[in-house]
């Protein structure tokens, strides 16, 4: 009786711990911005919020793939390189024409997904640790791209992509609308489909998943493939936004995708985390970097503040777990909660 109650509480969205984490992270982002507004009245105008949201789309999209891979207990270090390759490909293939988009777009997306699938193959079948596999793969393909393009910036990106990133629908910039759609689609795919739930299961316990007969290798490969695809989409958007492409344009995004996923509440060992959390983490980081810019300090202080705030955000996250566990301890049937707390706080 008590188990059913707690289980139903856990399965209802409002009490899901990860949703709470994500909401707290978003709240944190909003609080930071409000604090800045007090210090600097010019900050926080509608245009600035719009700018913050627009520029966060690259991280939001790329971090989705990273989040999926981390759910499995892995990691993807090739995201930066794949973003750059996607940008270079779309720019080089379209060369300023919209007609070329019809075939250049699928070619780019498929090629980059293939790089992701290659990652997945290495991890699933060759049992190479994801850290090394994705790092080595990314390095190798960077070399290939360097050889083909010599690093020169590519031709103009198709105008349609550029327009996409700068247009507005009903006064709202298109990228913000896209972010909303992506959030919904991504969350549904990750948490509501059977495949998504299987990935959670694999991430939680490989042994149990094996016993249950889940297609572990197939899902692993698929997850890395999706990561490659997301990186590709982010790269396309970035190329559209900056109307150009270079081979190092994806580099600044790799560490932030990892940070966004983890700040959003996902567990690096896998099995736990909502896309909503990653999304919140991405927005949080975007707001953080804006605030740091506004503070106008030397780079040294910027880094110290950035590092400090990341740690504070993490601490607040764990405090929230403790709060929740205290709350839930009042409820009957608390013992089924033990599997919910993150592993780190257990010991």
């Amino acid at each position, binding site marked *: 009786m008590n188990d059913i109650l707690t289980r139903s509480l856990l399965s209802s969205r409002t009490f899901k711990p990860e949703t709470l984490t994500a909401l707290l992270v978003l709240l944190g982002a909003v609080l930071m911005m409000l604090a800045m507004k007090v210090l*600097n009245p*010019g*900050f*926080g*105008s509608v*245009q*600035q919020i*719009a*700018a*913050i949201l*627009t*520029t966060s789309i690259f991280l939001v999209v790329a971090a989705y793939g990273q989040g999926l891979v981390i759910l499995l207990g892995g990691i993807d270090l090739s995201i930066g390189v794949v973003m*750059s390759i996607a940008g270079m490909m779309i*720019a080089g293939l379209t060369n*300023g024409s919209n007609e070329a988009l019809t075939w250049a777009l699928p070619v780019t997306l498929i090629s980059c997904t293939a790089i992701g699938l290659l990652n997945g193959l290495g991890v699933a079948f060759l049992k190479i640790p994801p850290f090394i596999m994705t790092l080595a793969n990314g390095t190798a393909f*960077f070399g290939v*791209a*360097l050889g083909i*393009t*010599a*690093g*020169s*910036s*590519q*031709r*103009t990106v198709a105008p349609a992509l550029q327009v996409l990133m*700068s247009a507005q629908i009903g006064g709202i910039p298109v990228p913000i609308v896209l972010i909303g759609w992506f959030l919904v689609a991504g969350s549904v795919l990750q948490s509501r489909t059977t495949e998504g739930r299987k990935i959670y299961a694999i991430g939680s316990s490989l042994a149990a998943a094996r016993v249950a007969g889940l297609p572990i290798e197939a899902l692993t490969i698929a997850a890395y493939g999706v990561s490659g695809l997301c990186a590709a989409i982010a790269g396309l958007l*970035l190329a559209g*936004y*900056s*109307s*150009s492409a*270079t*081979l*190092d*344009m994806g580099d*600044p995004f790799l560490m932030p995708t990892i940070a966004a996923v983890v700040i959003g509440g996902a567990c690096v060992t896998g099995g736990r985390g909502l896309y909503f959390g990653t999304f919140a983490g991405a927005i949080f980081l975007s707001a953080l970097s*804006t605030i740091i*810019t*506004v503070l*106008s300090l*030397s*780079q*040294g202080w*910027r880094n110290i503040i950035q590092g400090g705030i990341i740690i504070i955000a993490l601490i607040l996250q764990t405090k929230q777990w403790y709060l929740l566990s205290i709350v839930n301890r009042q409820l009957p049937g608390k013992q089924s909660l033990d599997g919910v707390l993150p592993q780190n706080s257990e010991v």
Partner: protein
Amino acid sequence: MTTFQWLVTVAAVCTLIAPEGRLYAQNEQKYKVFLDMSYSGNTWQAAAANGIKALAATPPYDKMIEFKTIISGTDVQRQISDIQSMIAAGAKAIILYPLSPTALNRVIHQACSKGIVVFTYDSTVTEPLAYNVSNITARYGANTAQWMVNKLGGKGEIIFNHGVAGTAVTKTYDEQAYAIFKKYPGIKIVGDFYGNWNDATSQEEVSKILAAHPNVDGIWTVDGTYGSLQAVVQNRPNRLVVIAGQSNNGYRLMMADPALQAKGLQGISSSAGPAVGGYAFKVMMEVLLSKKKLTNHNVEYPLPWVEAKDIKMCSGDRFEGGCNVFPEGKVPPLFLDTALDPKFLPELSLDAVQTGNPAAGAMIQPLPDPKYADNLPGINCQECKAPADALEPNLVSPIPVAK
């Protein structure tokens, strides 16, 4: 003595008295020349490397040298390791983009002590035996800041786009620019960020700062200029800015566009250009072949300086007749016009800097005498003093400070 001993003695004597041009392995009198890149995969580095490669393959150098490009990556110890490998492999000349002005001094000293000619391009080292070819001493920061102040009439709001933090060039240029801006109380820096010489990053950051400071009058950049300007064009198209920065083709086209000028765009196209690599290579070869002897190890490559009125469209593939920009669509917007240098590097064509292949029919032309650079302690020399006016502009005359 036996016949064998005679032969050996004769051979030994021959090698001793042979002129410069001893046998190197099996490649009849070819000098081993290495290009050591550290950063790679960005437009600037690619253009510089392509220029050097094209020159190395241009007659008569193509027959004289055995040329190889090594990419060491961004870890300084790897660059040290690669240079040691080059020494062991019998290099005669090394041209490199050093990751640090000081960390490579020991290994470069080793190389120079073995008679290897070592040249750096754009990024400098403080090792006295090495040769530096750069325009870091040409006071980009002071000149561009003063130019902006002049155009703004001594008052206005400015966004400051720093380069990569922790580099000597960022420290130097920032110091110069801030010193100039501080002199004019009407000039206010309302926002600064680290664009890291990256156009996408610059575009993102400027759009955010612009949203909070809608009355910005000017943007100072070293690179990432095109992205910075894009942010203004997209968010505030009817009121553009005074901007100083790089020499991307797209940026120059925008500078020269009368429609944009009518909206207030005033730009200066300057900053370090990839052609410095090719120029350093040519100077290095002349020193290697003993055609030139440099009295000072620091050579200054002239700072590009193109204003809107100087911009002239090119009709062909070369910068001829004073033209300095290509029409839209011929090259990508981020293409660096300063990859070509009709004065010092007439052997390079557009194709050469985009692919690294030598231009058809080109022959290496001799260089005029080099201009030597100022001392900048910690940048290109160790125990030395900077000139007293190191922070003052030398290309632009300052307007008086308003009372």
